[in-house]
Structure formats: structure tokens, C-alpha cells
């Protein structure tokens, strides 16, 4: 059962998000705009791999989801940093909410955002962008959920080590491109340089992309991929639990 204080905190974050939804709209709208541009290139990639009857959306939609969802790591951290900026963090800590309830409440909205982004991109992908899911939707959702969990866990790990929002933002921006690139979200994995293909399994995006690919193309059930993503998420949570101190002073913007 979700603790009452966590629900109250998540509801408050939702109110804030409703007042200013722009940070959520952009990571969803931008990939939707980009997908038509990258689809043909990905279709050529499938052709080179001798995979026929694809529109390119089978690679473009998951690639954009993986890349832009990573920016939610920044959204997760900003939920904490703004409490420091508004001087409400100590008020939360002085409330009846325990440390665990505060953290649970703060990650709830980013987790919903990640899942919402996944649902919107894949839903609109099917409806408007020519995406066809040949395999299991259940497997696809499982990979999306595991990646979303990893993202919020990564967000906590980032908050644990960053003193300022600018540090968290820098990690998010660089991490998004690096992880997307190594994972085969910017360029199909088969076309990556050999050294990058060796490094790929070390990043969660590789397991997400390959999991999506298996589910979409119907190559099987990506159980291993989900398990690996959950392992990454657990590692981030353990790291955050060891490093994150709620009484740390965070500097909001610089």
C-alpha cells in the first residue's frame, strides 16, 4: 500500500506539473517531430540487415523514446532541487512524512511521466507513424516499464551525487546522448563501430533497444532484457540509498 504522505507529495508535484507542463510536453513533442525525419534512414538500416517489411518506425519510435526519456532523469532531479530553491525541503522533512515516503512521493510523478511518454510515443507510432508491433505488446510494455524504473532510479542516483541542478542537468544532457549513442538509439547497433559494440552491453539503453526490437519484430520475449534493466535500476537505487542524504544542502540553480 502506498503511504498517505507519499500520495500527498505526488499529488502536490502533479499540481505543480499542471501549472507548468512545458517540461513534459517538449520531450514528447520533439521525438514525434523527429521520427518522420529519421524513419527512412532506419528503414535503410533494416534493409541492410535483411529485415524486410518494415517502415523504419520499428527502430525510430523506440530510439526516440530511449533518447528523450533519458531527459526525465533531469526532471526527476528538478523535483528535488526546486524544493530546495523554494525552501520547502526542510518543511517536508519536518512533516510527518518519513524519508522513504518523501522519496517515494517525489519519484511517483517522473515515473508516470516516463510511462506516459512511452504510451504516447508507441501509441501515436502505431496510429500515425506506421509502427507495427509483430511481437507481444505485453513484452513491449514490460521493457518500457523496466526502462522507466531505471530512469527514476538513475535520477535518484544523480541527485545523490549532485550539489546543484546545473550539475544534474549536465549529467543528464551528456548522459542522454552518450547512452543513446552506445545503446543503438542514434544509429542501429549493427552499424556502430566495433569498439562501441563491445561497450554497448554496459549501458541500459542497449538492453532497452534490443528488448524493444525483440518485442516489436516478434523475435521472442525479452525477459533477459527486462531483468538486466531491473538490475541496473536496483544498482542505482542501492547507490542512491548509500549516498543520498536528505539533510544535504542542495543549491538549486548554480
Amino acid at each position: 500500500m502506498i503511504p498517505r504522505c507519499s500520495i500527498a507529495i505526488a499529488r502536490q508535484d502533479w499540481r505543480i506539473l499542471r501549472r507548468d507542463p512545458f517540461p513534459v510536453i517538449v520531450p514528447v513533442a520533439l521525438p514525434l517531430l523527429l521520427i518522420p525525419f529519421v524513419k527512412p534512414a532506419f528503414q535503410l538500416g533494416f534493409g541492410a540487415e535483411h529485415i524486410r517489411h518494415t517502415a523504419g518506425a520499428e527502430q525510430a519510435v523506440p530510439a526516440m523514446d530511449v533518447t528523450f526519456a533519458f531527459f526525465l532523469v533531469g526532471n526527476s532531479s528538478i523535483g528535488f532541487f526546486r524544493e530546495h530553491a523554494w525552501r520547502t525541503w526542510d518543511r517536508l522533512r519536518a512533516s510527518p512524512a518519513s524519508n522513504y515516503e518523501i522519496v517515494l512521493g517525489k519519484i511517483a510523478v517522473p515515473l508516470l511521466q516516463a510511462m506516459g511518454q512511452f504510451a504516447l510515443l508507441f501509441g501515436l507510432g502505431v496510429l500515425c507513424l506506421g509502427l507495427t508491433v509483430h511481437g507481444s505488446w505485453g513484452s513491449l510494455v514490460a521493457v518500457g516499464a523496466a526502462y522507466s524504473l531505471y530512469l527514476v532510479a538513475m535520477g535518484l542516483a544523480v541527485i545523490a551525487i549532485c550539489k546543484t541542478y546545473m550539475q544534474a542537468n549536465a549529467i543528464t544532457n551528456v548522459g542522454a546522448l552518450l547512452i543513446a549513442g552506445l545503446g543503438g538509439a542514434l544509429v542501429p547497433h549493427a552499424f556502430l563501430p566495433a569498439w562501441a559494440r563491445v561497450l554497448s552491453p554496459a549501458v541500459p539503453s542497449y538492453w532497452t533497444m534490443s528488448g524493444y526490437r525483440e518485442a516489436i519484430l516478434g523475435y521472442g520475449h525479452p525477459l533477459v532484457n527486462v531483468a538486466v534493466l531491473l538490475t541496473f535500476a536496483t544498482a542505482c537505487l542501492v547507490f542512491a540509498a548509500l549516498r543520498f542524504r536528505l539533510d544535504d544542502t542542495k543549491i538549486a540553480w548554480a
Partner: protein
Amino acid sequence: MFLSETRLKRDPVETTSAPRRRMRPYTARAPCRPALAMAGVHKSYRDVSALCGVDLEIEPGEIVALIGANAAGKTTLISIAAALCRPDAGGVWVDGVNMLTHPKQGRRSLGVATQETGVYPRLSVRDNLRFFGELVGLRRKVLDERLESVAEAFALSAVLDRETRMLSVGEVRRLHTAMIILGRPLLLLLDEPTTGVDVRTRARMLELVRDLAMDGSAVCYSTHYLVEAEQLGASVAVLHHGRIVARDTVQTLIGSYGQSAIELRFDGPAPQLVDVPGVQRSEAILRLATDRDSANSVASLFAALGDSITQLRDVKLIQPNLESVFLALTGQASSCKDERLEVTGDT
């Protein structure tokens, strides 16, 4: 009395939590259990000692004004009482609950308004209040009713649906304090709640604090403004270099430590008077304590002025007050002395 119709009555709180977590009227509480008890509290930041063996008890319905100069340890004391930071040694109990071992349980009985105002600027006043009501577990109906009454008590009804960033400084201060009142906590920790507000808002805040204490809340009220302690009818704890050097009612402290004085203000630098013992000189002011043998002291002071008397601009007789108590105990003037004089005109 603007609170006459909207008085914040301390009645049983309806919450979603278990019955034992409900706040009860004080008659139902165990006797002799202080709302706040601190014993032997020590706290250091690296090699700087912030609190050195602080003992403090506050009973339900009591207001304790915590006064001290900057860096005396007031905010540290409040942070430790609220379990926002741990002491290096000592114990803290809120309504009998050990805050070091059961902080979550203890926090159900307290409300903290930190020194810096903490509100959600993009949300309305209503949403700010609602959030803190939800955090303490108020049901929707109770929360709605209480939100209206608290808003009225704090003169925020007219701005309930306004974004907080659009409020005046005084309104934000009131909201900041109102947010902790929704749960009707047994113990209120108010850290300099009137900083930066105008005289009218300050008077309103003081009246609210008095009313909350009358309804049974214990209040720990940290302030630089000594006059507030007097206006609140509070007992006083003087904190100096991390130690509570005096803890009693204002009248008792004045009786024990207060000194009357005569203060002479000059046009230009005050003269040096080597023949009159006990005269304090500060730029254009001479001050002489007049607690004993006043007539002779004053006479000798004026006699010693000589030709300087032509430069004399103003003479004030200062009655024994909390300011002089503070001066006697800490050896330094309150940082808000001028404001005090301006507000009270007690010369």
C-alpha cells in the same frame, strides 16, 4: 479580535490515521508531560560549537521566546527540536516521544515554520494550505473546513486562489505560518516568524500566536525582537553562545537582571567623562546605569559635563526592560534594538 469568530479550537482531529495518533484536548493528556523537552543537547559544526548542553522544557499552552544574538544557536536548537538535524549529544522529546529514535511519530505533534519562508510560488494559497493538510492526514471535508478557517484567521481568505508568487511579503509570511496550523500541532516551532514584515502584520502574527497558545499549543518562538517577547506575554530563554543563560518570565528576569539607565545624546561626539564611574560611551551617546544611588549618579553626570552640556540634544530615562536584561546577560545589545525603541517608545 479578528480571531473571535474563527478561533482555532483544539478539538479532536479527524485523520485517516489510527486513533492513537489523534491529537486530543489537553485534559486527556498525561499530566506533567511537556510538549518539548530537551536535555543536555550539544551540537557542533566542525570545530564551532553551536549548542552546549541546552536544557529546555515547554509546557502545553506556554510561549517561550527564544532570544539571542545572531549565531547564538536559535535556529540550530529549533532544527534539533524538529529532528531536522541530530544533536551530537543529549535528548529531545516532543509530547513524550523521543525525537532521535521516533522522529516520524514525534513530528505528528509539531509544526515548524522555518526562518526562511518556504511556499510553492506557482501554486495558489489554497493548494499550499491543502498540501500541508494532506500531509498531516486530514480528510477532504475536514481539510476544506479547516482551510477556510485558517485562511480567515490569517487574513488570507481574499487571496486563497491567488498564486503565491503574487502575494505581498506579509501575506507570504502569514501563509508560511498558516501552513503548519492546519494540523493543529501540540508544539509550534516558529523561527523568527516576523522577519521582514510590517508593523501591522507583526501585530496580527503575535495575536495569532497568543491565541494558539490559549488553545493549548506550546510555542517556541525564536526572535531578535525583544519587544515581541513582552507583547506575547512569553517566558524567555536567553541563548548566548549556545547556552541558555536565563530562563524565566519577563518580569522575573527584569527584576533579577534589569537596570534602569539615563542616556544622553549629543550633537557630535559625546564627551569623555573620566571622573564618573560606570559611564558607557558610544559615539554620540553616554549611558549611565542608575540602579543604585540614582540621584547622586545623575547629578555627578551632569556636573561632569561642563561646557559639553551645550551640545546635549536629548535625555532619556530608560526603565529596566528586556533589552537591559539581554545586555546584562550577554554583554551585547539586541540586534534589533532600534526597532524596539521605535515600536514601543519605552523611554
